[in-house]
């Protein structure tokens, strides 16, 4: 969940009253955001520099760190959070975002060249005219772009935002894709000119930007935006040009969003203009740009129109379980930035603003009604569903066996399914024939490379960590291993295994053999119902090991653990071990 920093002072000013921390916490709870942390700007800097806490002074500005839901992009900046809270508290009415009325001829154009199709096919733009920045607004404007880049833009892969001082540029603009060596400009924060090719090298050492290079690096052409004087606006999704950089004094801002996903580009652009058009001379007014695609089709953007959705009133009432009137529902929705009206046929028509891209289905409207009504005001009811409780037979069976093993004096351990390849194979004197084990492709560490094919590595690791436990040690585990299985849709299947180990100053082979007999006894397998035959498993000691056969097939084996294996796991004492599949006895 993304976190947004909001100055407490600003919140109080915007909400028109002072909230105690508890009161504000409560407000957040009701609306579904979370006051995650209370800090100060200086404290954040101190933390970054690893300085001591005691240097804090009293008059520092308090900052609330607020966690917002991952699908509410309109809450990714203080402006959006304040607006939602003000509307929820009925301090403010839902604003109407609109496009400025201009003759078609005065609308700036962004012409898209066909070559962009191979690398980053989409672009949408808008202009904020007559904007007034101050320190806080400017910082918020930059922060919002960062947060959008982090979240919906998926680290700029899906969408990248560029903002420019329009007064330094000359339209119309072109969105092109050119070989990197042909693109030449002075990038933001630099003094000299680079070709795009040189830039890719240059930014390899830039901590922030190097993460984005891979998005276009291998492409023969790079996306680039020019104005009519061939000034480079930006090299998306990497960097903007220095020429059109915005500053505190910028009055007219051009926003361009290039993308591989047009839907998300529109959401990002709408979020940017909805949040910051409030600082324009004409409040909530946005100047459009015409995007001309390679076949000459013109799309005017941004699209700030209200989406409509008709929702059955009975659906809302039935889903929540509260008999609300249409008027009440309309009123509740207005607190959630949704205007609506009752229409014929027991329905309401909901007008969804460009900021609420999270509303996909009437269920999202229903949720907003429930949130505005208050989850905790909904009366408790009991589902009338009458059903019977039932266990999975395999789990019930496993639980019964677990009790038997504990009663036989063995203590239960519970190990991870993920182990290293070494633990699953080499340390057990085994080779990976690549036919039995499921392999993880992206483990964070070698500890999680492979799904265990037996319970042995985990149990041996327990013994490795139990050197100081008084002998004899008797442990067991009944749990799943995973084996490749081409007959399954996913290509692998779990298998439930039972394993037990005895460790003492002597190997106790007969004790494990006796446990096997006991297990067969409680499984109601008569003494002549299973056979043990000498075996030659690499993890077990020669001459003191056997396979267990039941109804003609091998279900497991038991024996003394091979001394080399004990050494591999740094276990000083001899151990005997049994492991078997149990699903066949079900």
């Amino acid at each position: 969940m993304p976190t947004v920093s909001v100055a407490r002072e600003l919140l109080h000013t915007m909400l028109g009253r002072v909230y105690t921390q508890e009161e504000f916490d409560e407000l957040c709870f009701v609306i579904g955001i979370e006051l995650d942390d209370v800090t100060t700007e200086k404290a954040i800097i101190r933390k970054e520099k690893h300085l001591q806490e005691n240097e804090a002074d009293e008059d520092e500005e308090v900052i609330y760190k607020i966690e917002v839901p991952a699908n509410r992009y309109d809450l990714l900046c203080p402006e959006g959070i304040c607006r939602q809270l003000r509307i929820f508290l009925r301090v403010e009415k839902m604003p109407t975002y609109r496009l400025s009325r201009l003759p078609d001829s005065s609308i700036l154009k962004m012409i898209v060249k066909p070559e962009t199709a191979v690398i980053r096919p989409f672009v949408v733009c808008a202009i904020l005219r007559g904007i007034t920045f101050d320190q806080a607004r400017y910082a918020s404007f930059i922060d919002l772009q960062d947060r959008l880049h982090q979240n919906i833009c998926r680290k700029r892969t899906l969408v990248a935002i560029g903002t420019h001082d329009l007064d330094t540029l000359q339209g119309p603009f072109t969105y092109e894709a050119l070989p990197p060596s042909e693109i030449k400009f002075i990038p933001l924060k630099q003094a000299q000119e680079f070709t795009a090719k040189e830039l890719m090298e240059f930014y390899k050492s830039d901590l922030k930007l190097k993460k984005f290079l891979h998005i276009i690096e291998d492409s023969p052409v790079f996306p680039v935006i020019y104005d009519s004087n061939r000034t480079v606006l930006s090299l998306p999704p990497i960097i903007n040009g220095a020429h059109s950089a915005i500053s505190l004094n910028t009055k007219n801002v051009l926003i361009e969003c290039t993308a591989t996903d047009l839907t998300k580009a529109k959401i990002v652009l709408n979020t940017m203009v909805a949040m910051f058009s409030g600082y324009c001379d004409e409040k909530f007014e946005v100047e459009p740009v015409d995007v001309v695609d390679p076949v000459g089709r013109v799309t005017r953007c941004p699209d700030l129109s209200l989406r409509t959705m008709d929702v059955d009133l009975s659906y809302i009432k039935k889903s929540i379980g509260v008999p609300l009137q249409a008027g009440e529902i309309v009123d509740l929705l207005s607190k959630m930035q949704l205007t609506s009206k009752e229409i014929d046929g027991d329905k309401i028509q909901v007008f969804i603003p460009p900021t609420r891209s999270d509303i996909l289905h009437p269920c999202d409207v229903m949720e907003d009604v429930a949130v505005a009504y208050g989850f905790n005001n909904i009366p408790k009811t009991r589902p009338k569903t009458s059903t019977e409780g039932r266990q999975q037979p395999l789990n019930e069976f496993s639980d019964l066996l677990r009790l038997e093993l504990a009663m036989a004096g063995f203590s239960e351990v519970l190990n991870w399914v993920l182990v290293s390849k070494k633990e699953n194979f080499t340390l057990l004197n085994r080779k990976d024939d690549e036919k039995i084990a499921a392999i993880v492709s992206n483990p964070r560490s070698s500890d999680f490379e492979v799904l265990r094919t037996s319970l042995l590595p985990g149990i041996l690791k327990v013994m490795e960590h139990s050197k100081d436990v008084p002998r004899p040690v008797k442990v067991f585990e009944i749990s799943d291993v995973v084996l490749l299985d081409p007959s399954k849709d996913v290509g692998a299947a779990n298998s439930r295994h039972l394993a037990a180990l005895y460790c003492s100053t002597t190997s106790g082979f007969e004790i494990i053999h006796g446990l096997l007999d006991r297990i067969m006894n409680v499984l109601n397998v008569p003494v002549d119902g299973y056979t043990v035959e000498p075996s030659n498993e690499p993890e077990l000691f020669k001459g003191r090991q056997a396979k267990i056969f039941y109804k003609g097939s091998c279900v497991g084996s038991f024996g003394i653990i091979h001394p080399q294996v004990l050494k591999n796991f740094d276990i000083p004492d001899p151990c005997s071990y049994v492991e078997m599949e149990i699903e066949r006895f079900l």
Partner: protein
Amino acid sequence: MRDADGAERALLAFLESNAEISNSEAFARDLGVDHELLAGTIKSLHGFGFIEAKDVRRESWELTEEGLVYSRNGSPEVQVFDAVPAGGISREDLQRKLDDSVFSIGFRKAMSNKWLETKPLVSRKVLKVEDVVKQQLLDIKDGKNLSAADIDALKKRKLIVPKVWKAYSITKGANYAPTRTKAATEVTREMLLKETWSEVAFKPYNFQALGQPTEGGHLHPLLKVRTKFRQIFLEMGFEEMPTNNFVESSFWNFDALFQPQQHPARDSHDTFFLKSPCKTQTFPEDYLERVKTIHEQGGFGSIGYMYDWKREEAEKNVLRTHTTAVSSRMLYKLAQDGFVPKRYFSIDRVFRNEAVDRTHLAEFHQIEGLICDKGLTLGDLIGVLNDFFSRLGMKKLRFKPAYNPYTEPSMEIFRQVYPLYGSSALLTLISCCNSYHEQLNKWVEVGNSGMFRPEMLLPMGLPDDVSVIAWGLSLERPTMILYGIDNIRDLFGHKVDLKLIKSNPICRLGM
């Protein structure tokens, strides 16, 4: 010399006619036994109440090794004096006649005593000297008292060291008898046979000591709590889902749940993908088509996510990130078999590609419950959550709006941490909180819940008036709170402490 039995008899006999033995050490000396030996007898007799023994501490002096030598050979100053012939002797010759240490100490001492002079031959200054030091050392050896000044002088020369003597003063005890018979510790078969049990004296049992540890095996704490949760679900009429499939396709784990393909949870930073088997080959194709459509274009009243849905993404195998992957299979199957109302639950492992620390593991157990029926409401969800959590001893819940791609509405479940009253689970929780006061009356998140989105249910083919309410929580967290474990690796995995498995109490959640 008497043995221990002899000493015991003598001691008990002595007390028969005397009121007290004031000093066991003197008594031992008179008896001619070692005091250490007698002390053992005294402790044993005291233990059985035959005698009452009180500690007597006495400080005495003991000769050091050096002191012991001088007590035999005389003090070094006298040895030096004696070695000087009447006519005098050169210093070198004198030194040759004596041990190095005797000469160096003795010569200096004899000079400072003004017994000798050098002019330049060493010669006697007085006719005769008395070896006072030797006599003092012998006196100490015999246990005689010396003046404080003498003691001090000897102590300074490191010839004596203090020694603490522990002895006892003894009177008759409550069970005094002139002789004792050995007390029994066990009732034996022989006593029963011979019926001697009524005559035998039994050693008093030490009720302060712990009894003998039991033998036997023990169940794992996490699975004891799992058993409790399973019981609660079964009592509430829930049917267990088969969750023994850790490897799952992205399709069932994400796509079927209407989780878009660019969702951050599908990132390699959060999810384990598989190299082998890397993908799933078979899907119910018609259903897959409906899932693709709902993602790309919407349907059933939804506008969808409006992006290009890729089959290759859905085919990618993962270690399931939630048991809801199983729920999606079960609900799809339910739709195919013909809808009937269901209550389902599962408790099993899920996997997250997270860094391992005190509170996070790459795998943990998810508890999940869901109800599938026509006409379910949010009020029903709140009601069933109250029923479920009250069985865990959590009576008061509160719900916070949240976001989850496959539930709408989504509610985080919070419970209040009460002051010291209520169920034992709460007591345990409170007692294991470090910041006890801070925790009081705080709302703590205990799980997540919601109603499955129509975009998930309707493509499966469930009737459109069917709703599913569901909730989930982890098994590890309540277990850690219940048993006061603050590092998850102490609980789950090979670093578990076998002593913890042995010693942890029964799971009394909600009792």
